[in-house]
């Protein structure tokens, strides 16, 4: 099993959708939310994901396809 700690940033149009529910149900990914801030016009969630590596990759690709920004919890680590 592989684990990843990620920060998801949701575009406003996805705030009302049960995105993380689908990540669990459709991809069989274990999610463990540690911190989050979701309001009517923005949302971010910091969580740990656990699944087989290829499952994680498929789940992340699906998230990106929905316009969710997926970053390491460190955010941008490439520094000028």
């Amino acid at each position: 099993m592989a684990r990843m700690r990620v920060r998801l940033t949701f575009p406003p149009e996805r705030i009302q959708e049960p995105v993380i529910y689908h990540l669990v149900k459709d991809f069989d990914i274990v999610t463990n939310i540690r911190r989050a801030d979701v309001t009517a016009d923005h949302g971010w969630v910091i969580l740990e994901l656990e699944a087989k590596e290829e499952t994680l990759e498929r789940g992340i690709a699906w998230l990106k396809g929905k316009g969710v920004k997926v970053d390491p919890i460190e955010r941008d680590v490439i520094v000028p």
Partner: protein
Amino acid sequence: MKIVMGKLKGLKCRECGRRYPSSPVHICEFCFGPLEVDYDYDALKGTITRQSIAAGPPSIWRYKELLPIEGDVAVGHHVGFTPLIRSQNLAEELGVRELWIKNDSVCHPTWSFKDRVVSVAVTKAKEFGFDTVACASTGNLANSVAAHAAEARMKSYIFIPADLEQGKIVATLVYQPTLVAVEGTYDEVNRLCSEVSDKYRWAFVNINIRPYYSEGSKTYGYEILEQLGWRAPGHIVVPCAGGSLITKIWKAIRECATLGLIDRPATKMHAAQAVGCGPIVTMVKNDTDILTPVRPNTIAKSLAIGNPADGYYAYRSVKDSGGYGEHATDEEIVEGMLLLARTEGIFTETAGGVTVAVTKKLLERGVIPRDESVVICITGNGLKTPDVLYERLETHVTIRPSLSAFDRALADLKSQARS
């Protein structure tokens, strides 16, 4: 130098406050918040004085007791203590009574303020027993990590996006690190570096060593205060990329007030960013603590971080101090660089152009009153990235090697200047 025993309490989560012993970790295991070095200020009070600091070396290490280093200094003995220049010419052009330029374009050894953070990070990495340091960088950070690793006789790995221009690579390659060019999108390179940091027991300076690394930025603030005769200026204008520098300068000012080195932390911190990559200033202008990541599109490459790790804390530093922020367009950035060069003889990189341009705007809009003291932060040298000026500067006159040709050319130039 007197050693203060037990000055470090360890690390503390910036979000939930949970404490951790001093070790190479950067994330709280419970809330995944960032960790920060925690000091025992009661133990430091009265021990650190203006006199004890003045007795130290002319480098960042005169503030060693306020840095997370417990052993000997390993590298970068000459980093910092850069000039704080009382500006006459630029002050006149901008119409401000008291203007100071903190000039890290001449910071040793790699000509940017990154030498402050990296010398602390590499010293701490040695203290932890690492034999390899690493970073992901497209510029100043890469230069500095490679140079300090060479001095420390440590192995170094520098990760870069594969499409980075050759000109930017040479100033890193000269120190002979292992340079890893990664093919892929910016996000893919970013994620890989985070994963490498998880897997390998390396000191990744801006990932697992980040709590220690970022403390080095405090020295920029200490120096401003000390060089002003232990006085907090009215305003400091700071260029923002990851948001750490402005956060740590503000921390330095508050620490100095806590320790009685200055009267009170009465400085307004102002954030300077480019229009094409300004998520922190956007937070300040919209008065929101939510950072919206952006895709950078600016000539200010040295500030091009679209999803800054310390964005929220930078915003807080601005708000808590009563400061503000401004964006600069690419044209204004170049004008800022040229203005600083023309008036003060300082060639800064684009980040410095942003700072000058933003200072000008803040003065024009009355955010910074013209009769108050202002410090502008110049954080890098222009000689590394002169390409941004190639299209904008030209030779004034070309002549044959004869005195008469020169006489005619000079007369023409004078006449052009008059018209």
